[in-house]
């Protein structure tokens, strides 16, 4: 500052006392230790969304009428906006900050608008690069999880084949969600758009044993959903007119609905039960829905509950069925009435909710010609033939979506976690991205390997190594403790070589011949700098694997 003052002094004083120079020489920033920084941040709607759709990135484009650009951003994260715009429970809106201002943004309505517009205009998903892989990834199930996985893998350029046991793709979207909630025309449009980017559907192919396909593919993603119905164990459930919710919906959605008999009693409180009730109303029946817990505890989405109410479905809470009776007027085989009992809240159960306890003497009978049990669906995986670790009746997966079976991933309703279209789609996309990343990093032949934790010390045969002390570089600190030289030194050439010689080369074949020398059956032969095993002579004694100094050899089944 002093030089600037000198400079000012040298100028002749002005005639009037007006400043003629600015103060910019004075860096006021020196006074502070904080400053503003710009960063793009995540909007709370995207945080709430299982798919992490960047809602805030495309809303302004819609506002400006740039719908195609908006849809492209949306579709990059979600290939089924027309579907999710209808059936997703739009938790995104629960994150919307406008709730604290006026009303939340109608995000799902805009999503649906963009999805439908895309179908109307025939907008296509970005064409992925040509397939470079030798074999496809197999996906079991063409529901949202399978579709998400297929989409992520196709975007990464990997071929996929989806095995679907039903005759048309869509999984639960096709068999479980009624037409009045999800028009089949629009579902088909989004599915064929995926087909056009190379997603291959193999409908009507039920996989009986996973091993029959796992050999021919690079990896497997299990997304077979939860299609098994839970048995209520209520007497009289074998009468005509008693159905499981999903079977009832499948028949309805397939265009061959069951005869309602005019009065339907729905048992359950999930979304399936609501769909059953609403479908039954459309079949012209009087519908009563009985749920054993309170309205607040109902797993079904409140919005659906309201819509069902508006359609004339009568809800009865804290009621459970005891027995189903045959119709005395008819042939005695059809449902005539149901005896129900009132429930009250008891001690909390494993789920933390109050256990419903029957109120003694509160039983009553209601008329019904059809009883539909929609008390939950469970996954079925007979095709694994007992393989695969479970977690609470579902397939256990790690953070990457891997099951305990090498090369087999899983997602959607067959794994633990929330069951919704968006969560399944998110599971599929995440697993697909992980599979693609692993395929890229490790190669197709290695995707099927179990998670590699590195060669453990037990696999190193210490008998083949001689002990030698670890070599440290000489430190200048020791030579001159108070000095200002660098406190540590670099290894000298000879020392570096010697220390490198201490490396076990864990897991790397160094062509040491130990296996070759000790094979009692001469089943190991040298081949192009490595070894091949003549399995026609190998008796499987395992000496080579036991003796291998570096843990390169393991004994595996010959038929694998």
């Amino acid at each position, binding site marked *: 500052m002093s030089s600037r003052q000198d400079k000012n002094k040298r100028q002749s004083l002005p005639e009037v006392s007006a400043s003629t120079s600015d103060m910019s020489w004075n860096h006021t920033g020196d006074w502070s230790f904080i400053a503003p920084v710009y960063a793009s941040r995540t909007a709370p709607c995207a945080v709430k969304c299982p798919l992490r759709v960047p809602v805030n990135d495309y809303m302004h484009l819609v506002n400006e009428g740039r719908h195609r650009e908006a849809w492209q951003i949306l579709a990059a994260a979600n290939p089924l906006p027309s579907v999710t715009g209808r059936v997703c429970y739009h938790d995104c809106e629960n994150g919307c900050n406008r709730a604290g201002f006026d009303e939340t943004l109608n995000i799902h309505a805009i999503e649906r608008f963009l999805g439908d517009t895309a179908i109307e205009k025939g907008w296509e998903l970005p064409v992925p690069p040509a397939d470079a892989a030798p074999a496809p990834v197999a996906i079991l199930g063409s529901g949202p999880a399978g579709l998400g996985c297929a989409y992520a893998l196709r975007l990464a350029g990997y071929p996929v084949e989806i095995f679907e046991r039903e005759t048309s793709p869509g999984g639960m979207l096709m068999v479980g969600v009624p037409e009045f909630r999800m028009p089949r025309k629009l579902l088909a449009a989004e599915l064929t758009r995926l087909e056009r980017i190379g997603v291959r559907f193999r409908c009507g192919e039920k996989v009986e044993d996973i091993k029959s396909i796992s050999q021919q593919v690079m990896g497997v993603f299990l997304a077979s959903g939860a299609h098994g119905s839970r048995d209520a164990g209520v007497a009289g459930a074998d009468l005509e007119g008693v159905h499981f919710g999903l079977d009832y919906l499948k028949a309805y959605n397939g265009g061959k609905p069951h005869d309602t008999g005019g009065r339907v009693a729905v048992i359950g409180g999930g979304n399936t039960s609501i769909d059953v009730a609403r479908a039954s109303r459309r079949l012209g029946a009087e519908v009563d829905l009985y749920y054993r817990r309170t309205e607040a505890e109902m797993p079904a989405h409140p919005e659906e509950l309201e819509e069902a109410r508006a359609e004339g479905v009568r809800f009865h809470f804290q009621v459970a069925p005891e027995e189903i009776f045959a119709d005395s007027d008819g042939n005695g085989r059809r449902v005539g009435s149901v005896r129900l009992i009132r429930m009250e809240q008891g001690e909390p159960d494993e789920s933390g909710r109050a256990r419903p306890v029957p109120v003694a003497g509160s039983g009553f009978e209601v008329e019904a010609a059809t009883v539909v049990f929609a008390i939950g669906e469970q996954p079925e995986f007979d095709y694994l033939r007992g393989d695969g670790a479970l977690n609470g009746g579902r397939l256990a997966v790690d953070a990457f979506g891997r099951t305990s079976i090498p090369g087999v991933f899983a997602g959607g309703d067959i794994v633990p976690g929330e069951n919704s279209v968006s969560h399944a789609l998110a599971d599929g996309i995440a697993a697909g991205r992980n599979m693609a990343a692993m395929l890229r990093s490790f190669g197709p032949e290695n995707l099927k390997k179990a998670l590699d934790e590195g060669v453990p010390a037990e696999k190193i045969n210490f008998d083949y190594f001689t002990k030698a002390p670890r070599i440290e570089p000489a430190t200048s600190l020791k030579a001159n403790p108070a000095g200002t030289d660098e406190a540590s030194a670099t290894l000298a050439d000879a020392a570096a070589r010697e220390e490198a010689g201490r490396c076990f080369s864990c897991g790397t074949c160094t062509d040491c011949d*130990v296996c070759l020398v000790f094979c*009692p*059956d001469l089943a190991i*032969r040298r081949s192009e700098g490595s070894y091949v095993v003549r399995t026609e002579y190998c*008796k499987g*004694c395992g000496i080579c694997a036991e003796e291998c100094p570096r843990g390169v050899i393991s004994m595996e089944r010959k038929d694998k």
Partner: protein
Amino acid sequence: MQTTDYTKNKDLKTESFGCGNLACPGCGETIAMRGVLNALDGDAVIVIPACCGSIIDGLFPFSKARVPVLHTPFATAASTAAGVLHGLRRRGNKHTTVVAWAGDGGTYDIGLQALSSTVERNEDFLYICYDNEAYMNTGIQRSSSTPLLAWTTTTPEGDLKKAPKKNIIDIMSAHRIPYSAAATVAYPDDLVAKVRRAKSTPGSKFVNILAPCPTGWKSKPSLSVKISRLAVRSNVYPLYEVFDGERLVLRDNPDPVPVGKYMELQGRFHGLSEQEVELVQRHVDHAWEQLRKRADEII
């Protein structure tokens, strides 16, 4: 490192030992014979008496060895070898090594008389005893090579072997033969060096090769080499050579492991009490001390 040079730069097809042998998985005998035949560069005739080796070799007229093999009665390995030797030499063949290849039963017990008289005449042949410490081929009966407190079908639980293993090298040394040695399969460099030394020495040579037997020792087939190595590292089976019955060269073992480490991998020693293992340890320690005292050179 314990690898050997005999496989280096050599196609396996030229080995004098072939595939398809009838041994149990993990058999020490086959590793031993492969090492010996490679050390002799395939210039050998083998005489095999009744033993595992005669079965392992193959079904007549086939053989795993790519050298001539003669099968003889149990007691006559050494004397048959002497006959083959004289036949070859009369025909002018001065180079082929005649090898008697017998198990411990056919060496320590049944073939001992023929062996003794043949080496006493200092016939120019190589006698190899692949020592699996019992009559394995006939059903794991004890031999005089079976170690102290080992289980066999004739020394069952409650009546385990009370006598320690016979020292065959001492017996051979007493004949003052030019070369006798103890080797084992886990040390192929050492094994090959000893066989080559024997080949280049005129007169009678004897090499005892400890050959683990998964079937008779009740051990995992994969552990045969490891057990062989532990036999040496625990001093149960020291590696040494005796020249002319006098000069003893011992391979040192500066950091021995307890015998329990060797014994725990073998079912034939399972069920021994701590005191019994301790007794074996004392026997082993004593024998090792004696050997060190006698050694002219420790390498």
